[in-house]
């Protein structure tokens, strides 16, 4: 080895041992009152590059060029460059810029969008988990009672189906979830994903293990769960997410070839997320989203074309209905709590998709018409709700299960 080679090797070893070289980016979960915009630059398709010293297969020169453009854009429009993340699924490089007080957010977004250097620009939007406080206690899992989960699990457990859960942090050490996560990633900040209530409950409802250690049984206890932390627990009662954290997690879920993406959240219509939802749909990924009861059209992403909207009560918009009240679910720290909201109705439907897909991998479940619901009689309580067994039978005629008409029902 030449002396120069040895010196460069020493420098490389220092780089390896010093993660402090990582550039410090601002936490995208900013304080109140600070507005952020997302600016999308064109990300060229990867291609041949000359290198006098071949082996450089990364897009370092391209990234440097875009960083220069983003810095110039920020300077020209009076904003501060904070962070960036490539979205090859959309062919864009996404830059986060902070808007100082004194500048109107709408004007900044409009001017950035008009700049010929950008593909588009949008404000950073905030999304929230759709859970509400339990009003009373129920001792049983409504979904288990309604769908006779144990019998259903003799036919299908969702084995091999990949469900991406974009939510707050999941408690990976909870007895009901230990060993159930194929992925456990944090797209909010650079720490290990923490255990947070909304994400833990959603993941537990979808796929808690069916063993002695778990006091609840997930709808799809053998599905592969991809826990992608794109939201954070702002307070005991509020879970928040934003366009950037959700987009990063969507980008990952798509490239990780998820079969289902669960979005138990709602917020304003978002251009970046809308395009990612379309990209997911183009690749055959089914997105399940909770209906926002406060929004007349069901909110976003539930109202986005191609997304399967789920509510816990009958709605004016086309949506599936699943139990969403007082569902026992894992809570951070190893215990359980009762949760309510369309968030958890959506989680149940994601689990059911996995049960169907294990037996019928190509079943087209993206339309509400593919799902069978309970008739109005004999039980009024379950009328209009999804009938899991009948839906399974519709998707794969080889199924032998019966939608048992029970006279005793918690419903």
């Amino acid at each position, binding site marked *: *080895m*030449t002396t*120069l*080679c040895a010196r*460069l*090797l020493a*420098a*490389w070893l220092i*780089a*390896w041992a010093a*993660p402090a*070289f*990582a*550039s410090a980016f601002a936490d995208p979960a900013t304080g109140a009152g600070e507005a952020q915009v997302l600016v999308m*630059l*064109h990300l*060229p*398709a*990867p*291609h*041949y*590059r*000359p*290198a*006098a*010293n*071949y*082996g*450089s*297969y*990364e897009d*370092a*020169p*391209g*990234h*440097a*060029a*875009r960083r*220069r*453009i983003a810095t110039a854009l920020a300077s020209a429009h009076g904003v501060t460059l904070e962070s960036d993340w490539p979205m*090859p*699924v959309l*062919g864009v490089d996404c830059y986060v810029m902070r808007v100082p007080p004194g500048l109107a957010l709408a004007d900044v977004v409009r001017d950035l969008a008009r700049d*010929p*250097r*950008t593909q588009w620009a949008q404000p950073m939007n905030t999304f929230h988990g759709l859970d509400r406080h339990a009003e009373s206690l129920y001792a049983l899992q409504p979904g288990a009672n309604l769908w006779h989960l144990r019998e259903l699990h003799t036919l299908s457990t969702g084995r091999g189906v990949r469900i991406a859960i974009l939510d707050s942090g999941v408690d990976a050490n909870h007895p009901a979830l230990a060993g159930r996560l194929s992925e456990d990633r944090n797209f909010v900040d650079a720490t290990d994903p923490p255990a947070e209530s909304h994400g833990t409950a959603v993941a537990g409802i979808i796929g808690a293990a069916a063993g002695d250690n778990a006091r609840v049984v997930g709808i799809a206890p053998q599905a592969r769960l991809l826990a992608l932390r794109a939201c954070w627990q702002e307070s005991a009662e509020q879970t928040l997410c934003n366009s950037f954290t959700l987009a990063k997690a969507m980008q990952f879920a798509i*490239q990780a070839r998820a079969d289902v993406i669960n979005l138990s959240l709602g917020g304003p219509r978002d251009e970046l997320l809308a395009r990612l939802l379309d*990209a997911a749909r*183009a*690749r055959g990924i089914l997105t399940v989203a909770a209906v926002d009861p406060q929004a007349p059209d069901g909110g976003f992403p539930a109202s986005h074309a191609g997304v399967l909207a789920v509510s816990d009560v009958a709605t004016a918009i086309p949506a599936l209905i699943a139990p969403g009240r007082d569902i026992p679910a894992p809570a951070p720290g190893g215990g359980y709590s009762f949760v309510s909201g369309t968030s958890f109705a959506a989680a149940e439907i994601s689990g059911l998709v996995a049960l169907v897909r294990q037996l019928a991998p190509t079943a087209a479940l993206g339309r509400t018409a593919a799902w069978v619901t309970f008739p109005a009689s004999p039980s009024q309580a379950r009328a209009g709700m999804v009938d899991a067994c009948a839906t399974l039978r519709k998707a794969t005629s080889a199924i032998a299960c019966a939608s048992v008409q029970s006279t005793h029902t918690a419903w």
Partner: protein
Amino acid sequence: MAQLAIDASLASDNVYRGISLNDGDPAAALNLNWDAGNGWYAAGMASQVHLYRLTHSSAQVGADAGYAVRTESGLGWEFGGTATAFADSSGYNYGEVYAGVLGEHWNARLYFSPDYFGRSERTLYAEFNYAHPLHDHLRWFAHAGALHVLSGRHDKIPLYDLAIGTGARFGAFDLQVQWVDTSRVDYLYPAAAADTRHAWVASLTFSY
């Protein structure tokens, strides 16, 4: 909107397809990369070479242009051409055309030259590259290539080259170390050190 990037690098050697073109000596290089924004791209490069029978390092310059597209499934494809010229040794100038497919972490290309390194040989070069991101800013990568002479006086046995290495990126700098190996000695390349079969190569690149 078009994007232009410049990078400058210093390497312990100028290694090309497994062959040292700078007689095992450190080489500086400059690259210009231009992306039109509609799939078309072009680049220019300059580097140092120390060729056979020359007593000093001289310059190698190259240009390439091509078109690359990314499909909805995530796979990409491209085609293009390169031209390489050598100051002081224009007899070695040559051109190539290529086509390739690209995945998220890998790419494969096939190159054809009607007159490889000016040696009156028609050649095909096939390569496969893979880069795997590790924690934070680190990666490892591997490369395999095979050069096949289609016609001409030269040896018809394919010349294989392999490289495996790791790299680290911090800010605008990129540091890379790799082990390069070839299957046999070959005098097709007009390199001063054509009989060197393997080497460590380290490089530091600054991108602007």
